[in-house]
């Protein structure tokens, strides 16, 4: 999956989950400050991303994710490391 495809899929998931219009979400959008995602929401988001991308994100990584760009970078990194199911 290309970085562009990853970004598009992440935006779609966020848009649906948080009821935000797709074009309002940019790579710089901050999850907590701009989208109102609390810590439990972040845990749930990671769970949904794991399902959508069929990979496992370590708990320790969740804490470092602040923006949409961060999510995409982690997903790109982990999709290289994790074999597809």
């Amino acid at each position: 999956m290309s970085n562009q495809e990853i970004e598009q899929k992440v935006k779609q998931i966020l848009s649906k989950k948080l009821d935000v219009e797709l074009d309002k979400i940019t790579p710089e959008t901050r999850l907590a400050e701009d989208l109102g995602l609390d810590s439990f929401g972040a845990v749930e988001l990671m769970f949904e991303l794991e399902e959508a991308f069929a990979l496992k994100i370590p708990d320790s990584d969740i804490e470092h994710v602040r923006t949409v760009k961060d999510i995409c970078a982690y997903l790109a990194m982990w999709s290289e490391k994790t074999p597809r199911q």
Partner: protein
Amino acid sequence: MGTNEMGRHRVVITGLGVVACNGIGVEEFWRANVEGRSGVTLIDAFETEELSSRIGGQVRGLVPAQYMSAEIASRVDRFVHFGVACADMALRESKLDLTSEDTDRAGVIIGSGAGGQLFHEEQILAAVDRGAHRINPLAVPRVTPNAVASQIAIRFGLKGPNLVISTACASGAHAIGEAFRKIQYGEMEVCFAGGVEAPLTRFGLGAYCSLRVVSKNNANPAGASRPFDRKRDGFVIAEGGAVLVLEEREHARQRGAPILAELIGYASNSGAHHMVMPDPGGEDAARVMAAALKDAGLTRVDYINAHATSTKANDVVETKAIKAVFGPEAYHIPISSTKSMIGHALGAAGAIEAVVCVKAIGEQFIPPTINLDEPDPECDLDYVPGQGRAAKLRTVMSNSFGFGNCNAALVFSSVS
């Protein structure tokens, strides 16, 4: 002043919200009740092929995002959709401005028999299918029965008591009764009280089928719930909810609130007999009705909204109990069954029926018991069969009897 001769505060109802299979919102629901319109259909929420009962009171057309943010709506179980929607409707009708209220003295007490059943079932299937590590991280706060009261408290900023009562089919009535007591004793001034249930799931319906207490009249869904009728063959499982705004009377008067009715009596007790069967003599049902009447300072009421589930056992026992309490006068008190039209919404039933009682007083009209074509010889009271009727209603009683012999009775009156 604001207290009665016992030194207790008086409690009035200032708002109603309801979601049922024959109507969403009080207006639509009440019209269906007046017209004797059933909301029972074949269930299409999930595959029912394998089950003996494939009918239910399924709520259609509720849009949760009309009552809460789409984000919250996507993060809660269906039973919470019902609760928050009903609370929102009740708040609107009450015209209560929570921004100018002492919210420390505003609470929420909701009845729920089984909590977030649909999500619970989905997560168990996910765990079986893909492993327990694939359980949704928010499963605990989605499944827990108190999710409904807490989501209502969060949505409206209610900082007083926040409770859920789980007493099977009497949950909603107990929630209203306990809220009544807390306001009477000065613990709160406002309470969102009611009941919700969302049992239309494969496990939910399957479990009742296994227990053999539900109607198998799949050929005629609208005719399946037939309380007091000779051909009744069990209840029809239903989903829905109702929330009432209960308010201390002086508080309501001072803000010029629309006062719909007064709650004047409540009692709860147990038959201590069996987890499913009622006491065949109906002694506990009679006792709870008598205690609620005494609490209200009455010896008679003008109408009884019966528990009347359409099971063989319940309808006969309730009839016996009504006769034991009211004596020969029982034959002159009109009685009807809301469940004849909407089926049995379990933990929501007592609250939905409380809405019917308040509307009956407001409209001076008794909704019918539908499908009562040929009465069971052991059920020989006036059950208002087929057609509703106008009546002078000053006082109304509502009965609720839950599995495990958890009983409740509520008494409402018109506003004096």
